[in-house]
Every structure is written in structure tokens, then in C-alpha cells.
């Protein structure tokens, strides 16, 4: 199994989750302040990157994806908490490690593409999801995702 999926989600302050499908419907107040998660799945494995969702999606696409198109290391510094995730690519796998929890090793290419894919879905739902967003806000995100996608080798 080499596929990696990425699911997005939001969590209301009271802990109520919003699945990505729910997110797509929009109408979630204070979205821009809401935490959420970027859940990486690979087979039975799962790894969540939890953070301010706006920050998490954008940062993963902007920071991690372009940095790991080849072997290398990218660090995701959380916005809403103190965890730092180290993404290390060696060949075809990317290992995500944390000081606080067991890491996960995922196939590199599928991961990066899944992240970009998630970013694209996220950007697509932003107009409905983000009330009060300025066009340039959405454009900024879209730019980040586009840049990330562009960094990937062509399929």
C-alpha cells in the first residue's frame, strides 16, 4: 500500500469536529480562528498535524512540500502549540518525527501529493468557509498551494 490520504478537519472550541465534507459546506463561524487537523493516513497508520487550520494547511504546502521534493529536512513549527514536526525525506520515504510522539514514515511522493491535494481542496472551500476573508487572503492560499504543486515533479 503506497497511497497516502490527507483529511482536513476543524474543531469547534467546544470540541465539536467538522469533517472536511462539513467544512466544504461552509458557514462555520470564526473559521479563521479555529483549530483543525491535517490527518495523514497510510494504510492503518495515521498521523495528525493539529493546529490552526489556516496555518497548518498553508504551512505544509508552503514549507514542507517544496523542501522535500528531494532528500532533505523540513520542519513544521506549529502555530497553536509548541510541537515541531520534522519531516525527513530519504529517498522514497518521508519520516515525520516529533519530540512528543512516535513518528510515522510515509511514502514520500504520495504524501507530498496528498498534501498538495488537500491544499487544493482547502483553497477551493475557502470562499464558503471563511467569512470575511479578503480575496487576497484566498489568493494567497491559492498561491501557496499552486507553488507547492508546482514544486512537485510532474506525474
Amino acid at each position: 500500500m503506497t497511497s497516502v490520504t490527507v483529511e482536513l478537519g476543524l474543531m469547534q472550541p467546544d470540541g465539536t469536529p467538522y469533517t472536511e465534507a462539513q467544512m466544504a459546506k461552509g458557514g462555520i463561524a470564526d473559521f479563521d480562528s479555529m483549530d483543525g487537523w491535517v490527518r495523514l493516513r497510510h494504510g492503518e497508520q495515521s498521523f495528525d498535524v493539529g493546529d490552526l487550520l489556516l496555518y497548518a494547511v498553508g504551512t505544509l504546502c508552503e514549507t514542507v512540500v517544496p523542501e522535500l521534493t528531494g532528500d532533505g529536512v523540513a520542519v513544521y513549527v506549529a502555530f497553536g502549540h509548541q510541537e515541531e514536526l520534522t519531516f525527513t525525506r530519504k529517498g522514497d520515504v518521508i519520516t515525520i518525527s516529533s519530540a512528543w510522539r512516535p513518528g510515522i514514515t510515509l511514502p514520500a511522493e504520495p504524501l507530498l501529493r496528498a498534501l498538495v491535494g488537500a491544499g487544493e481542496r482547502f483553497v477551493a472551500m475557502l470562499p464558503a468557509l471563511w467569512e470575511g476573508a479578503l480575496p487576497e487572503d484566498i489568493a494567497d492560499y491559492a498561491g501557496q498551494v499552486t507553488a507547492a504543486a508546482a514544486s512537485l515533479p510532474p506525474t
Partner: protein
Amino acid sequence: MTKKGKAARVISDEVRWGIDLAEYMSLSHDDGDYWGDEEDDEEAGPSPEELRRDALYDELDDLSPPEGAEESEIQTLTTRKDAVVQALDVEDIGPGDIANAEALMLVAEQEVQAIAKAVATRKEDRRLIAADFDLVKAVEGEIKPHKTRIDAARLKATEALSAAITGASNDLARKAVDLLAQTVKACATELSDLGGKDGVDQLCKAFAIDEDSLALLDDAFGTRDEVIKAVKGFGSAEALAKVTAAYGAGPAGAKTMAAVMGAMGGPAALAKAAKDIGGPEKLAALTAKGGLKPSEVKALCDDLGPGFIGALMGSGDDPAAAIALRTEFGGDIAALTDLVKEAGFDTKPKTLAKLLTEGCKGKPGDFKALCKGFATSEDRAALGGIVGKGGLGDAPDALADLFSEGCKGDPATLKAFAKGFDDDGKREGLGRLMAAGGLGGGAKVDKGGLGALFQSVAGDKPDLLSEAEFAKTRAEALAKLAKGLDGADCTRLKTVLEDGGLGADPKVLGHLLGAGCDKGDPAKVKALLSDMAGDTTGLARLGDLLTAGGLGAKDDTGTKTDTDPKALAALLDPGCKGKASDLLALAKGLDANDRKGVKALLSKGLGKAPAALGEVLNTGCKGDPATFKSFVAAFDADDKREGLGRMLEAGGMKGGDKVDAKTLGALFNHVAGDKPTGVSDADFAKTRAASLANLSKALDAGDCAKLKTTLEDGGLGTDPDVFGHLIGTGCGAGDGAKVKTLVKELAGDAPGLKGLDDLLKKGGFGTKDDAKAATGTDAKCLGHLLAPGCNGDPKEMLKLAKALNAGNRTALKGVMTKGDLGKHPQVLGKMYQHGCLTDPNGTHTSAKNPQVLKDMIGEFADVDGPRIFKDMLTKSGFTEAGKEDRFASVLRHGFTPKHSAPKVQNGKTLRKLANAFDGNFGDLKTTFEAIEGAPTHMLEADKPNAPNRPGKGLGNLIHSPKFGGNPNGAKKLRADLFVPLKTRSTAPGTGTESGWGGTPKMTNVKDFLMTAASFEHKPITHATVTVGPPNMSMNMSHAAGRHSRKHGKFELNTSPHMGTTLFDCDTDETKIKTMVSTGLQPGNVARANGGAPDRHPSQRPPLKRRTPPLDQYDLDGNFLRLNGTAGTESNRIGVGHTGGVLKVAQFYPMASAKPLQLVNTNDFIALNNALTNNTKAFL
């Protein structure tokens, strides 16, 4: 007629005419002419017969009476001769005539012979009479009157013996001699009867007469024989003289005496009476001083008995008492005589007299009543029993005192006493007490011992017994005691009496053996005597204590004290719990100075309060001599001693119907409150004593009057320990000013006092309820209710007392007694202090709100209420040492909403809480311990007079969104909070959680509990706040809702392995805003990636990041991670540039002077689920 015949006729005539024979004979022989006439008749020759006749005549002529013949003899002879003459004087004398004449002649001759013989006989008789005369001797010691009499008789005898010897003269002589002899003998006898010469001399001297005047006595007595009878009757002339002299000098006195003697039935009777009465003077005094007639003297003696009369006179001779007594009895003397006879007083007159003179105070009427009181033979026999075998007959003083003092002059009581000794064993025991035991009196033993013992042996009279019934009780007790003490015991008793000074203090003795020995219990008295008699030093000191210590009736200067005689007994029991050895130890433990102090103290009032004194030693000193010394020493000035006296008397603390005698002892025991740790008992005793002494001094008469009212009407008098603690604990260790305020407020509030009385007796605050049943309530409860409960304000205590109705009191009693709250006064006091406030969020000194208590107890008024209350109290740690304010904290803060109205306590919630944990109070205890053990950054710490824990933590739980506050908020606290958290604490790590390394899960339920309790659920006032000018906002709802315990809304971290960081409990939205605002200021802010921003984030133009980047903001992108420092706080401040605005989108603490708590996300979820209705699934 013949010559012879003629002569014969003449003789006959002469005899017939009484001529003296001898003279006649003389005449016959001397006158020859007479015979010459016969010759004229010779005219014829004589015949033979005539011759013979002549011869016969001649013979006849020769036939003369012998010398000494008496006339009768001569007459007889003449007759004989005349018969011859007549026989011869015939005309023609014949032979027959001659024969006849011769025969007659023979008769005459025989007559002559007979006469001769008679003469001889008379001579011999005379000789013998003379010889007898010679034998009559003089009387030895002859007195003059006798000599006169004897001389006269002797002269008559001499004269008689001198008379011619005839039968008649002999007879006369014989008679005279006999008379002489008889006279001599009679005089001798008389002299002897009179006591000889000495006796006569005494008589003469006594009657002021000489021997010659003895006849005067004869006149006085009637006859000499009477005199002699009197002498004999009195045994001696000396005695008679003595007796007679008593009636006055001289014969006159004798005459009086004789009259009395006559009336009395003779000298013997008089002598006996004189002896019995105590001497003749006394007997005579009946006449002389008493003015009694002889018959009256006899009547008096007959009625009263001389011995009794004499005894009544005592050492004097005044018969007034006896006379008055008889007068009193009038004609009804049988009551006395029967008593005398049947009760054995006939041989004990002095004893009987004492009964009148001292026993009846000399009042005849009383004595008569006494006699009549013993109306039946059975009564008198009973009295005889104690007079006889009981030894009282030989102890008149003791018997008199027994009646006057022991029986208070009541005959019925004496009768009861006598009947109490209803067998010989008891009577003999009484006898032992009187003799071997020394109670009969002696040099060192007062006569009043028995009376006092009888008076006191059974202690105080129970109200239910009549005087008569109690007299019987006393008698039985004393009789039992008497029977129970053997000879050795009695010997010891005597030793104790004589060497221990008790003999001189009978009342003290009586009470000592009575009240001091459990109402004269023989075993205890034996033990007492055994302990005491063998301790010579102890007895000596006991004696000193009685005198120098002022415990006795007289002190060491002989001055009468006013110390109650019960005082020593009280020191024995309850003071020494009846152990005599301890009493002696006390006596020995006191030196001269101590005794002086004791005396001074007793003299100022304590001496009149024996029961209180005993309890001072018992309750206040626990029987310890050293403590007693401290007590005494503390009262080192009269103002203190007098103060104590005031408290006892005016303050009512000496004891009475409404005030227990233990009150003073209890006050001494508790006046200084609880003994501080590390202070010795001895030192604390001094502290206590000083406190009491100072308090005594502080309370004036007015205060004491109020104190009395307080004690009597407030129910405190019958609950001394409660009172003691009220003063000690409740009034700042007996602070005078506070006590004055206390009694002022209490005494001035009658309804309040009634309420207080009810609170004690019906509300379970007393150690005994209104049925006098022990409640089990600690006596400290009321004291703790006052302070700290009411912060020492009596008005607040009264307010509570008055606020309670009957139902409230019943419920309160249930909680106090069955619910065990009464066993934990400190818990109770703090509970009311903090738990029943009108403003629980204010200070503990704010006004009380009794309603909270009423609500609380009302919830436990059901059948199971007290049980569950008790379980909760004891099993949830409310009563643990050092946790006495746990309950207070719970009630004050646990049931008071902190952030929602009404911010008042709700007592009803307690029952809900109890129900929630019933059967599992250990879990509640765990909860409390968890809260109490929380770090101070999690939960507000306790402060002085502010027991914040566990109450505030519990309050946070109860008033959490899930539980919803009072009262039902506590209802499911265990099921819905404790249990889930417990479960969470013990759950193994599962799924994703198992591998989390960021934030370990909590494994101790206490950690869960304390964390849960640290959330206050305070609503966030402003969801969005401006934290930086002019356009930087912050989502406070998010920041505070996640990281603040104050406002926490359990917002989960989306990075579950990281958990959630919680600020300390003081961090609220305001502080967060300040921290953010401050942290963003230049100098305080740093970029997370390093370096400081070159300007305030709010001044980040342009908002759109630029490509290529022109400054650091462009490099950071839309989300700026900053570290903002505000004082000791360092926080991550995430500034987001979204939506065209800058806002603080993320905020969490990174470092703080106070520890931050990082909570595992699933733990956080568990807390969320426990405290909110927003149940979340575990990750």
C-alpha cells in the same frame, strides 16, 4: 374469952385495921399489962385438957414470926395462931378440942418455918439484886443526857436496894436495878445508834446544840427513836447530820427534814433519795429552793426519780428544771415513767437529764413531746436498745446531741434512729462506735460526732423523700455502717478522730463518712479508716488542713470559720473520688503557705460552697494536689478571692437546683481553652488558675448577677462543661471583658436565653437532653459555636438560638447526636463560622445566616438523615485532625455559587452531596484530599480565617455546567464526576494515546479531581478584545476558554499528544489581555524564530506579504509566532493576518512564575465530560 383468946382477937383486929405488925408485936412484948388481964380468968384447976391448953398457949406465945417476916406472913401466922386460939378457946375443952388445937398448932408451926424460909429467900434475892446492880457499868463515851438518865436510875436502884428486905422491896430493887441496866443499855444502844460520841458530837454540831439539848432533836424528829431511826436510815449520824444540815441550821432544819423524811417514807427512803439525787443538799433544795412541801417532794421523786432530778440539777442544786418538768407533765407522767423504765433510763438518770437539758435545750415541753413520742412499748424498747447495747446510755452528751442536732429535736426522728438499729448486731455496732470508736466523746472528740454522723450519713435529702422517710434512710444507713465496722475499724476511727482533728469537728466528720463515703457505705468507710489510720503524717496534715487550712469549724487561731462542714467530704468525694489516701496526699501536699492560701480562699466564699470546692479538685484538678496548689496560689489577693466568692454566690456557681456544683470545677478545667501543644499539664494548670482568678476579679456583682441568670435560665447551669468551654473557648480563654459581654447579652435577652436552653436540651448542644439522657455531644460544642462559630459575638449565638423552631431543634439534635456533629466541636464551630454567612464571599466576620444551618439540618431530618450525616462526617474526613475546617470550607464555598447569583450558601446541598457519596464516602474524602492537595497555582490556597479548600474546589465542581449548582449540583457528583475520572485514571493507555509522549496521562484520580476542581467556569466577559492599537484584536474566548481555569471551556488542542496548557487559577481574561498587550510591546516581544520584531505587530504594513519579501514580516507570512513577555509570564502569541486584519489567533502560556499544567488531551476530555454537558469522545 380466954386470955389467949383475947390476945388473939386483938391481933386480928390489928391486922384488920392495918397496924404495922412489927409495931404491934413490939407493943405486945413491951406492955406487961396486957398479959396481966389473963390472970383474972384462973379460977379452977386445970384439967389436962386445960393444962394442955395452957401449954399450947405458951407454945403459941412462943411461936413468933422470924425476923424479916413480912406482914402477910405474920398475918398468916397470926391467923394460924388465932385458929389455935379459937380451937382452944372453948368452954369445956375436951381432948378433941385439944387435938384439934394441936393440929392447928402444927399448922402454925409449919407456917413459922415457911416464913423463915421465905425470909431467907428474900435475903438471898436481895443479895443477887445487889450483885446485879454492881454489874451495871457506865456507858463508854457517855453523853450528858445519858449520864443524867443513868444517874437517876442508878440512884433509884441504890435506894431500892437500901430498903428493908421484903419481897416487895426486892421486887422494887430488882426493877430499879433492871431499870438501871436497861437505861444503861438503852443509852449505849442509843449512843451507838447515834454514832457514838462522835456521832452525837456531829449531830450537835450539825444542829448547833450541845449534848444537853439533844432533846430538841427529839422534838424535831418526834422522838429520840425517830432521831435514831434517822441516823440508822442515813447510815450514820454523820450522814444524818449532813442531810439535816441541808435543811437549815439547828433543829428547825431538822424539823423540816424530818417532815420530808416522813413524807418520803422514812429515813431510809430519804437517804436513798438523797443519795440518788446526788446529795442531801440537792434533796433539800427541793424544799428550800423549790419550795416544795414534803409531800410534793415525795411526789416529785416518785414521778421523776431522784437520780433524774439530781441529774437535772447538774452540779448545782436548782430544782427548777425538775419542778418545771413535772409541772409540764402534770398528771400525765406515765409517758416519762414508762420511758424511764422501758428504755433503760432508770439506771441512766444523767443521760435522761441530758436529753432534757441539752437534747431539748431545757424545754420541758419538748421533753414531754420526746417522751410522748415514744408512745408504745415497741418504741421505748427500740430506744432502750440504743441506750443499752448501743452504748448511748453511757454517753449522755452524745445522746443529747444526737437528739438536738442529729434529730433536730424531733422525737419521731429519734424514734426512727432507734428503730434503725433493729438487731443486736447493729446495736452492738453502735456501742462499738461509741466506745472503741470514740464517738461517745472525749478529750479530743466532741460529743456531737454521732449526731452529726446521723445527720449526714446518708448525704443530702433527695427531693422525693419526706423528712420522715429520710430520717429512716439515715438511720438505716448509720445502723448498717455501725454493724459493718468491727472493733479494729472502730479503733482506727478513734485514731482518725483524735489524730486527724476530726474529733473536734463532728459535722465535718459526719459529712466525711456520709457524703464522702457514698452515704456511709461500710466498705468505703472501712477503706477510709484503713487508709487514714495508718498514715500518721497524713492525719497530722489533715488536722492542719482543718485548722490552718480553714476547712474545720475553727481555724488554727481558734476563730470560728464559716466553712461549710461538707467541704472536707467534698474534697474526698468527688475531689479525690473517695480515696482517702488521695485526700491525705492532698493534705500532705500542701505546705503551711498553701494552707494559709486555702484558708484565705475558703474565707472569701469558697468555703461556703463545698460541692463546688470538691469539683474544683475533681473536675478542675483531676484530683492532683499540685494542680490544687496552683489553683490556690493563683488566688493570691483578696480581690480575686472575693471575686470567686461573688461568682459562687451571686453568680450562682456554688450549685443549686439549676446550677450544677461542677460548674466552677468545669470552668477551672476549661477556662483557658485547650492546652497548647508542648505545654506541660503543670504549667497549663497555672495558666488555667490564673485565667480563672483574673476572671473572678473581673466580674463585678452586676456581672455575677447576670452570670447567674445566664446559668439558670440559659440551661448552662446544668451543663457545667458546656459552660466551662463557653467561657474558655468561646470567650478567649476566660477573657474578663468577653465574659462580661457574654453575660450581659445573654442575661438581657430572655427569649435568647430560652432559645439557648432549648438549644442545649433540645437541639443537641447539651451533654444531656431535656430528658436528662446523655447526648454524646462534646461539651465544647457551644463554646466553639460562640467562637469561632459566631466569632465570639454572643448576639450571633442568640440569633441562632432564637431562629430555631421546634422542628429545627429536633433536626439539629439528630445531626448533633446521631449524626455525630456534636462529637466534633471544632468542626461544628468552624462550620458555623464559615458555613452560615450572609456573605460567604466576604469575610468570616460578616453576619451569620442561621437559615443556612436550618436548611442544612432540615435536609437531614428524615429517619436516615442522621445516619448518613454521620457517615459523611466521619468517613469523608470532615473530622480528621487538622481538617476541622474542611466542613466549614465545604459549606461556605462548596455550596456558594462563585460566578452566578445568588452568591449565598445553600445548606440543602449538603444532603445532596451526602446522598451522592452515601456508601462511598471514601471517594468524597479522596475528592477533598485531592482538592486540598492541589498546588496553589491550581486552586486558591487556604488563608487565615479563609478555609478555601476544599470548598472552593468543590464549589467549582458543583457549579460546573454539568452539575448546575445548588442544590442538585451535588447530587451526581460521584456518579458523574468521581467515577468517570477514577475510571480514566486507571484506564490503560489505548490507541493513539498509548504512544503519546508529549503529555502523560494522569494516573491518580486526585490529579483529575484537583484539576477538575480548579475550573471555575466563569463566563468570559468579552469574547474578543483589543490587545493592541489600533486594530489588533484577540479571540479571548478561544484563549481563555482553552488555557484558563477561570474560564476554561475545555477547548481541545488539535494536537492531542501535546495536551493543553493551563494557566494558574488566577489567570483570567483580564490578565490574559494584559499579558498579550504587554507581551506585544517592543522590548517584551520576540519572534519565535528568533530576533525581535522591528515594530509592533499591529504596525505591519502592508498587510499583504510581499514577494520577494521586503522585511521580516514578509518572511513570516500570514502567521506571526511571537513570544510575549509580561513580567514573569511568557506566552506564545500567534498573530494572524487574515481577513485583512491582524488578530491574535493563538495564545498559550509557555512559561510562568507559577507552574503551568499541561493536561493530556484525553484527560482533558475526561475532565470536559465530567464537568460539562458537552461530552466528547476520547481520542
